[in-house]
């Protein structure tokens, strides 16, 4: 009897998570603006749709170095001096679903869709 509740609880969380994943991926717009954050502060915004060729950005801060490759169809971290290098291993992101996170350096890169107009733009 008790076991059944646990099975219900766990499968409930499991299904809910799957549903969230599905919703996230279907809601993700065509994303074309990259935002680079350091310690939660937006330090640079790059519009990917206006790029004619791939560009790189260096983020240097207190000896911590990250090199970001910005292309028309996505963003990737190509070099980082962080100890785990997980951010580089993540490869290229192409939508707003998952940000690139370099946890040791406090760097977050996320994509934002600028194909869909913002609510206040519609109101005007």
């Amino acid at each position, binding site marked *: 009897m*008790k*076991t059944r509740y*646990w*099975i219900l*609880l*766990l499968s409930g*969380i*499991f299904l*809910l*998570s*799957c549903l*969230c*994943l599905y919703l*996230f991926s279907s809601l993700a717009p065509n994303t074309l603006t990259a935002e680079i*954050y350091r*310690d*939660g*502060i937006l330090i640079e915004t790059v519009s990917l749709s206006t790029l004619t060729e791939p560009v790189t950005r260096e983020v240097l801060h207190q000896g911590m170095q990250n090199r970001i490759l910005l292309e028309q169809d996505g963003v990737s971290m190509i070099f980082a001096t*962080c*100890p*785990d290098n*997980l*951010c580089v*291993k*993540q490869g290229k992101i192409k939508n707003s*679903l*998952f*940000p*690139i*996170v*370099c*946890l*040791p350096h*406090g*760097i*977050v890169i*996320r994509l934002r869709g600028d194909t869909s107009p913002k609510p206040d733009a519609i109101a005007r």
Partner: protein
Amino acid sequence: MRYRRLTSCALLTAVALSIFVIEAQFPVLIPIPGIKPGLSNIITLFALLYLTPGETALILLSRILLGSLFVGNPVILLYSLTGGLCCLFVELCICKIAPIPALSAVGAMVHNTVQLLVAALVTGTFAVFCYLPILLIAGIITGLFTGFCLYFLNRSCEKTLKRIFS
């Protein structure tokens, strides 16, 4: 008798560390620390079943501190520490009412969620919560796996283990 307990703790810490170091060699799925099979949690659960809560906490702390030395990433220490301790706390609270696999799965989910929370606070970006569904799914799968490992071990040789670790 004291030495016997101490030896048990040391032995379990050594086993947990070995699992932890081997596990660190696995390729990563998602660039957030925490998405790992979490296999060394099996030792924490084992200790919870056979030793006192204090001894379990001691084993967990030693494993995390020594593990971060071996794997060579002190930055991740904060995440492992908060995740591990919250996981142990929740497991302690529900260990009387939950069957072992469920206990393990809940522990793994708490572990992953807390690490994500710390990551969000450190980076100041709540966008990392996009990973929550994946982390919960991973927690359930890996938690159930280690939970069932321990469940079958416990079922087949509980008497022998009780004698060794009493």
